């Protein structure tokens, strides 16, 4: 029977996480530390490994993640509390953490549950999973490159007209612009995997046929503003994403490929990549509209999900 392996030193948090994940019906195994977890792996085959942020930068964590993936784990997740946000760059540099949940509370139950259910059910797509029941999503199919600036401006206007702050509208604009731009110019690849539109001037008009069209959806449930961008190439892969998220040279020099993804990540609270290789890439950016900046952690969550064949 598949299981979930939790590695956390604190007994109370172990119990909280166990209660949240126990509802999935999968067996939940608990380890106090990485040594114990590595020993446990000899006898279990977890679909998901959850490691506390305090332990994840240890060299043994990489060993655990590598071994877990070899035994069939779909995702290696880290929970990052307020005390550990300074470790963000180290965690990103590992390139082994596929899912990172930043949580100001002991555990962010909703996001943890959604993440686990997506992995277990192999049902990845749709921003609806992160929004309350009944939330309407506006949808636009982008068929021309020149729609991007217009759509981004319209999104900002609509977000403001629905009572959200200028800060939220500004974040939404940046995220939408970067993700649409990537979907139009970077996602299309030829049979050899070469990206044939990435060097085209971004202000040059491009007609987007059925294959090249890009879908944008967005909605807000008064907790999150969700912006979802989909392309139908499915060329983005896990390693490219993790490299882009971990790029320190974005901060230093601002240059090079992957800057759009890095900026989008730094401009939202949670960035979710849903990948169906060769078929579609869906990126969902979540912006927290409940809490002012001063009540949020100085780090963002991310999730990379790859659909199983």
């Amino acid at each position, binding site marked *: 029977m598949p299981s979930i392996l939790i590695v956390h030193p604190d007994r109370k948090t172990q119990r909280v996480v166990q209660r949240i994940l126990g509802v999935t019906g999968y067996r939940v195994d608990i380890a106090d530390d990485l040594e114990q977890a590595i020993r446990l792996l000899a006898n279990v085959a977890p679909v998901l490994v959850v490691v506390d942020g305090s332990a994840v930068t240890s060299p043994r964590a990489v060993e655990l993640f590598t071994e877990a993936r070899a035994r069939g784990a779909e995702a290696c997740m880290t929970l990052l509390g307020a005390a550990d946000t300074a470790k963000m760059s180290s965690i990103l540099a590992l390139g082994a953490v596929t899912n990172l949940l930043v949580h100001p509370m002991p555990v962010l139950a909703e996001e943890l549950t959604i993440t686990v259910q997506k992995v277990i059910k192999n049902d990845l797509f749709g921003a609806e999973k992160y929004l309350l029941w009944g939330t309407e999503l506006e949808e636009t199919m982008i068929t021309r490159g020149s729609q991007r600036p217009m759509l981004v401006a319209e999104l900002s206007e609509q977000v403001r007209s629905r009572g959200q702050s200028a800060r939220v509208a500004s974040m939404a604009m940046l995220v939408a612009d970067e993700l649409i731009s990537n979907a139009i110019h970077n996602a299309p690849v030829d049979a050899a995997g070469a990206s044939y539109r990435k060097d085209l001037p971004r202000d040059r008009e491009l007609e987007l046929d059925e294959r090249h069209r890009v879908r944008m959806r967005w909605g807000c449930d008064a907790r999150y503003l969700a912006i979802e961008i989909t392309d139908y190439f499915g060329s983005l892969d896990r390693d490219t994403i993790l490299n882009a998220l971990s790029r320190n040279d*974005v901060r230093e020099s601002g240059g090079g490929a992957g*800057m759009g993804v890095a900026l989008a990540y730094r401009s939202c609270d949670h960035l979710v990549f849903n990948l169906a290789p060769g078929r579609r890439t869906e990126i969902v950016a979540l912006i927290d509209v409940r809490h002012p900046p*001063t009540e949020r952690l100085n780090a963002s969550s991310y999730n990379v999900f790859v659909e199983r064949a």
Partner: protein
Amino acid sequence: METRGRMTIEARGDALVLAGAIDESAALHELIGRAAAGRLVLDLGGITFINSLGVRDWIRMQAAAQKASLSVELRRVAEPLVHQLNMIIATRGNARVTSFFAPYACDACGREESLLIDALASAAGLAKLEAPAMTCPECGAQMAFNDFPERYFSFLSS
């Protein structure tokens, strides 16, 4: 449908007033040729948006200004640009920020406002990461700075 439009440049006094979006169409390098007496003064209060292509263009403009030994002064820097100055060190160049907008919120009436901070007059407080006191334009109560000072003011430390 709303369009975000091209960035506009207008000369006003000793400054070039920029407004709109800094994106792939901004052509910021043209600003270098409009510097006067070795100074390039930019009023950025009207900037509404900057994307990654705009950031690249901005960095190139800063590098060109350095190469031309221009002194760059940034006035009334809008919040979207402050966020980039904080996130990407290279955007700062050798520019001197003399004033900038910052987010404030009123605990009494809930109003949020982007308010102008004089970086020179408030330099001592800002060095200690203390945001200057501001009054709510709606109810007159004291407003609170609405971000982490160590994050929002980090661009001033370079």
